[in-house]
């Protein structure tokens, strides 16, 4: 198809409404939504899950499925109404003029087809290119997305590539026919932070190079800040605020946007002095929206009789700004600069004596080459290499690292699901490294408990909430009778601030945040002294994250629990932890108090991690450090320093030491240790990655 020449905006969505029709009722998914994307512009679409942002994208692609329907408004692409087009015309546009990149790269690629063939299909179908030209073009684009050895990549199957490489291929495929509009639906959610940073950098560069307009859908405000020119915040099917990044981030004009920013851990937040403010209440279901303003029931500025009057609220332009609009009746009256009234400042619990200490803990796995009959060569996977640290009472120790760094293995060894290969774990004066969980006494088991990552998986779907907590009490031998345990279970529900009626509910009747609270209640059933929280909030929506995080902190203050907080999200780690341990490929590369780890001198890996985390604050200046390549496999670690394959400081160490020896543990300051060959002078030269510009 011949590319259209057109000067106006690439995409104009005007008062779009989309509904899904079920047997019971009409469910409005998007209402009165307008946005314009100019050529070369990147627009971010931000909101919590279920707010309709993906539905907008599907609406643009005219791919709403059987029961979805555009019920009002129009979507114009280069001046043509997409809703009036026939299937054939749409097929011509999809993939050649509008391309889409989805969240899960593996699901977007055909696993039975070589990469090259999949890429070549695009120009061959849309532009009738010859096979030879298409191959040349594929080679060119794969080089553009910065993949090593493009010819080999084109000849491989999707499963032979890593997640980051797969996502680059999906991006390459979208760029094959130089589309005018690229829709990215949470393109990096499934990737690790450092890989995410590299992919985002790539998308930005390519957008500039090809002049493509972008619609970037994400729940992460920081990512949108880094990639987009304009932003549109959505809540419950409506756009509540649109404008340029600077206007919305610094001069927000809608209470929801404000509440959202107050609930994410920005560099200034502190768990005691300035705790996060969670948005009260729950996201309304699409068919249970309140009259008037959708955000009304959760809004601090709610005014009865005005905000809940049953009329549709329209977007209103903010005077003086460039295309900045807000869907709030009161935005002109609200004093947006008023300082946050602090609910309460909390005092931190005293850090007590050492509860848990690990000394040179090692865990190796032997992997047999042939599982069926044993025999064959065995390979050793070094999941943990000499972990040494101490954790004290009422202390939060964060364990940071990307997938494959050995943090889950460490948790398994601590819980007793695996036994250690070498080294010791001492808890309350007894060594437990060689005692599997069946051999541990009830007290020890109840003392170390875990909160899991995925709220939808953490509860048994066929047992009531109360039953699951009571079972934990039974196992921990708490209470003498069924009635005793029921009372205790209700108290635990109180502890995690859930209504007592929830005891008789099934897990499917609870929202994600509520399930996570039940998971926490279950972990504290036996008065646990050490709780391992494995990314407990990463799967939750932003507004719920703050509430669950605060709950954990509050229980910790009351019960003097030691919290081992496993996470890859450095913003939240900075907010709530006392000490931080950074892991890479089974090694502890840096350990120290939060201030020490977040300020130079850093370990080079910590430096890269800090730079990779998107921060939703325009006043923050970040140094851009992009790591090349992927994390090496633990089956086949590089010789010498584990990080040497991706380290940007490697050339600063003389004599190729990095490739020969594993660096020794060096103590820099009191309690601050780093595993690196860099000399003290070089370390001293490091500059802070994050600078907050003076305001």
């Amino acid at each position: 198809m011949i590319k259209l020449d057109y000067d106006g905006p690439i995409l104009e969505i005007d008062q779009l409404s989309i509904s899904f029709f079920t047997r019971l009722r009409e469910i409005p998914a998007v209402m009165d939504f307008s946005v314009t994307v100019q050529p070369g512009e990147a627009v971010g679409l931000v909101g919590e899950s279920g707010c309709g942002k993906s539905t907008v994208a599907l609406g643009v692609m005219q791919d709403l499925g059987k029961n979805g329907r555009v019920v009002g408004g129009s979507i114009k692409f280069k001046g043509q109404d997409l809703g009036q087009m026939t299937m054939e015309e749409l097929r011509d546009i999809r993939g050649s003029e509008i391309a889409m990149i989805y969240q899960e790269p593996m699901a977007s690629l055909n696993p039975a087809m070589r990469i090259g063939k999949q890429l070549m299909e695009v120009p061959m179908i849309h532009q009738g290119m010859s096979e030879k030209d298409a191959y040349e073009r594929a080679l060119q684009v794969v080089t553009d997305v910065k993949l090593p050895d493009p010819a080999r990549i084109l000849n491989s199957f999707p499963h032979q590539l890593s997640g980051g490489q797969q996502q680059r291929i999906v991006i390459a495929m979208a760029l094959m026919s130089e589309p005018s509009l690229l829709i990215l639906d949470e393109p990096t959610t499934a990737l690790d932070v450092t890989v995410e940073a590299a992919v985002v950098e790539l998308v930005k560069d390519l957008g500039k190079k090809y002049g493509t307009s972008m619609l970037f859908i994400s729940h992460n405000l920081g990512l949108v800040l880094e990639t987009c020119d304009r932003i549109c915040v959505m809540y419950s099917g409506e756009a509540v605020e649109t404008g340029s990044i600077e206007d919305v981030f610094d001069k927000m004009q809608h209470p929801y946007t404000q509440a959202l920013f107050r609930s994410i851990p920005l560099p200034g937040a502190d768990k005691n002095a300035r705790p996060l403010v969670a948005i009260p209440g729950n996201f309304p279901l699409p068919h249970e929206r309140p009259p008037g303003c959708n955000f009304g029931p959760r809004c601090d500025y709610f005014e009865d009789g005005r905000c809940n009057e049953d009329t549709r609220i329209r977007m209103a332009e903010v005077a003086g700004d460039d295309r900045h609009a807000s869907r709030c009746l009161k935005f002109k009256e609200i004093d947006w600069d008023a300082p946050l009234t602090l609910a309460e400042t909390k005092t931190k619990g005293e850090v007590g004596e050492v509860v848990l200490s690990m000394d040179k803990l090692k865990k190796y796995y032997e992997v047999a080459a042939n599982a069926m009959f044993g025999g064959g060569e065995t390979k050793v996977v070094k999941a943990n290499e000499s972990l040494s640290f101490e954790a004290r009472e009422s202390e939060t120790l964060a364990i940071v690292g990307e997938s494959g760094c050995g943090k889950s293995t460490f948790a398994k060894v601590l819980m007793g699901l695996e036994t250690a290969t070498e080294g010791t774990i001492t808890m309350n004066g007894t060594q437990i490294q060689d005692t599997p969980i069946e051999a541990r006494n009830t007290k020890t088991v109840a003392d170390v408990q875990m909160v899991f990552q995925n709220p939808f998986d953490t509860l048994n779907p066929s047992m009531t909430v109360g039953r699951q907590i009571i079972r934990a009490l039974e196992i921990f031998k708490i209470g003498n009778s069924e009635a005793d345990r029921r009372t205790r279970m209700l108290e635990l529900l109180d502890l995690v601030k859930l209504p007592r009626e929830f005891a008789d509910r099934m897990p499917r009747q609870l929202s994600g945040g509520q399930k996570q609270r039940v998971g926490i209640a279950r972990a504290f059933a036996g008065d646990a002294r050490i709780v391992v929280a494995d990314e407990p909030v990463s799967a939750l929506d932003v507004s719920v994250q703050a509430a669950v995080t605060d709950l954990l902190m509050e229980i910790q203050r009351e019960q003097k629990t030691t919290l081992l907080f496993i996470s890859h999200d450095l913003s939240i780690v900075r907010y709530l932890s006392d000490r931080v341990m950074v892991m890479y490929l089974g090694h502890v590369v840096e350990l120290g108090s939060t201030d020490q780890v977040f300020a130079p001198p850093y370990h080079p890996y910590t430096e890269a991690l800090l730079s990779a985390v998107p921060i939703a604050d325009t006043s923050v200046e970040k140094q851009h450090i992009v790591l090349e390549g992927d994390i090496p496999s633990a089956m086949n670690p590089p010789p010498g320093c584990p990080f040497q394959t991706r380290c940007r400081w490697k050339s600063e160490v003389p004599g190729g030491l990095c490739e020969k020896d594993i660096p020794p543990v060096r103590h820099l300051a009191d309690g601050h240790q780093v595993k690196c060959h860099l000399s003290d002078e070089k370390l001293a030269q490091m500059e802070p990655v994050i600078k907050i510009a003076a305001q």
Partner: protein
Amino acid sequence: MDPLTWTGGLSLLNYPLMLVAALLLVGILIQIVMSFFVAASTPTVNADGTLTQNAGLMGTIGTGVRMLLLAVIALVVLYIIGGALMGPDAGIVGGMSRQLLPVWIALIVLFAVSIKFKRKLGLYGKLFDSTVGMIGFGLVMFWVIAGVMAGVFDMLVTHDTLSQSSGMKNKLPGTPLRGAEDADYQWFLLGGDNLARDVFSRLFEGAWIVVYIAPIATLFAFMVGITLGLPAGYYGGRLDTVLSFLANLILAFPVILLFYLLVTPEIRATGIPSYMAGVLFIFPLIFFGVLLNSRYYTQPKIRTPLLIVVLGIMAWAYLSLISNEGTFVTNERYTIPGLPAALDWIPMPPEILVVFVSVVFVNSITVFRIVRGLALDIKTRDYVAAAQTRGEGPWYIMLWEILPNARGPLIVDFCLRIGYTTILLGTLGFFGLGLESESPDWGTTINSGRRLLALYPHVAMAPALALLSLVLGLNLLADGLREESLKD
């Protein structure tokens, strides 16, 4: 007395029925052919947010076909109601309908109650939202109720199933009974077989054998499959390799040959079927023992009495099942004593035991594989990890955390598997394996009717159609359950 015609006084309904049925067939054909050419019309959106579907040509045809289908169903119901009212005056159909009156009443009551309370009945209630599920359930329940009434309460049947009546050999359906007393039923409704026995009575008497063996055998197969499949999937490793290899070995062995081997007198004399029964029937004991112990071991006060009562009763049932007339195994060389005959409350004749053992043995392997696969999937969930980290035993995790969450596919498979088992029983009967030759069960009856199939098809046709409708009902029921369980 004259022989009965098929429809008797209701014969005036025959032509309308034929006409409507023919029209329905033509309508469906047109619908299929047209769907290749006419595109479905897209609904339009109204201003108030409602959708309007334009009927179009396809819509009109669809409505027509639906009306015809309803007309056919209405006519069939008319036959049944008319038959029940008029009795043999409405021919064979009427006679059967009158005879089955208790079944109709029971079915109507069951459906009325179920539909009234369907919102409170969980998955069973949801079945009544699906047409396919309701049809399947209706067919299955028809045979279950009829089987129970005929086999246990001796209702429905018109004549003794074993007694032969002179002059009734191979007589066609509707033939009056020669030399009937006043108290006797006057006709052989579905004719006589080659030993001059009443086909109608044997059909419903045989339904009982099918209806009680198939579900119980399937249940035993599930116990065995679950008890072995869960640890294979959960532990994996060497145990899984060994069990899966054995399963493959048995699956690779021809089933019919296995059955022949089991029923051969020489093999039976060695007591192999009895030993197999001894092994296979102990699995429910293990299953329930482990199930209750893993759940209640933290509370010995509840656990101990509960286990004693449950396992006591089950052990008694087990011993009764495997022993026959006071012995477990008996042959020329040795005798192993079993439960004394006085305490033996489950009569289990050796030939039924063989059928039971073969069916359980063959089915349990497939169940094993299904359960193993489900366990492999579910054991990676976080709630399993949560159970492990609070120190639950492996059997608690398998039976209380994994098994309940595998129930959906297992319930559907259970329904389908009863169908397979029914067919398997039919096959066994057809080959003359297991059950004795005068047994009224459907497989044996089809086999005995097969020899004169060209001359007197009715003897084999009646049980064949019965088998078809029961298995069809079970498959539809499984479909309905699957469909409805996916909706939540």
